């Protein structure tokens, strides 16, 4: 089932497992399309299609090296994802810090009150 190419940001770009595999492969350094075809075991047109999506959101950059094109990961484009995860983590951490205070109070109440906790 073909899906409309809605990819407009890093979140959508990395929601596709194959594209994450490409990014993983590029995390070790620059690669040519042929390298990626070999590593992923995908047909060249598919790899090129994914690379195009990743380029559109700046997750990868490309440079010409003789007759081949080398792709490189651009970590800065992952910052929105990093920021989102950090924000989510921070929200829960702050909730939990406040929950610690509530729990300390409940523990004291329970220790202090015999059978009158309700």
């Amino acid at each position, binding site marked *: 089932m073909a899906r409309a190419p809605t990819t407009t940001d890093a*979140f*959508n770009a*990395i*929601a596709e*497992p194959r594209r*994450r595999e490409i*990014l*993983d492969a590029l*995390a070790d350094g620059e690669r040519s399309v042929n390298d990626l075809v070999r590593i992923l075991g995908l047909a060249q047109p598919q790899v090129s299609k994914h690379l195009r999506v990743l380029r559109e959101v700046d997750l990868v950059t490309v440079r010409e090296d003789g007759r081949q094109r080398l792709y490189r*990961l*651009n*970590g*800065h484009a*992952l*910052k929105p*994802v*990093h920021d*989102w*995860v950090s924000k*989510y*983590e921070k*929200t*829960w*951490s*702050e*909730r*939990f*810090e*406040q*929950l*610690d*205070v*509530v*729990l*300390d109070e*409940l*523990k004291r109440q*329970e220790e202090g009150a015999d059978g009158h906790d309700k």
Partner: protein
Amino acid sequence: MTSRGTAKVTLPDDETILVTREFDAPKHLVYKAWTTPELVKRWWNAKRGEVTVCEIDLRVGGRWRYVMVTPDGTEVAFHGEYREIVPNERIVSTEVFEGAPQEEGQPEVGTVNTLTLIEVDGRTTVTIETKAPSKEVRDAIIASGMEAGLQDALDLLEEVAVSLR
């Protein structure tokens, strides 16, 4: 007071977000703090505003609704339904962000959250699993900017952390 660490967030697969944290309290107290409206109001705001509504009808099929008002007056509201309740151990509930776009006549788009409490030596590990019912819903949730389940994103970020500096 000792430092008790931060919440650990992991993204085990395309549809799931896992949050874990250990607490220096037995599980029945964590459960009480999680299910008593006056107590939830004191911690759920995450210092971002005031919880003005906290309704908890704690029975299978019962509804819950939390509303927080931030200092600039923005209301953030969530609601859902309890699906499974094992006192002091486990709560499965649905969660819908009221700001997320919904299609008329369709079931509400949201997540299924599972709270698990495991106590060892008087300390309780809390795990919150947030699961989107499908990749499509997950994508919708991502699009709403609220929640995302991005497999391996954290691992990937670790790998590329160097280039972020």
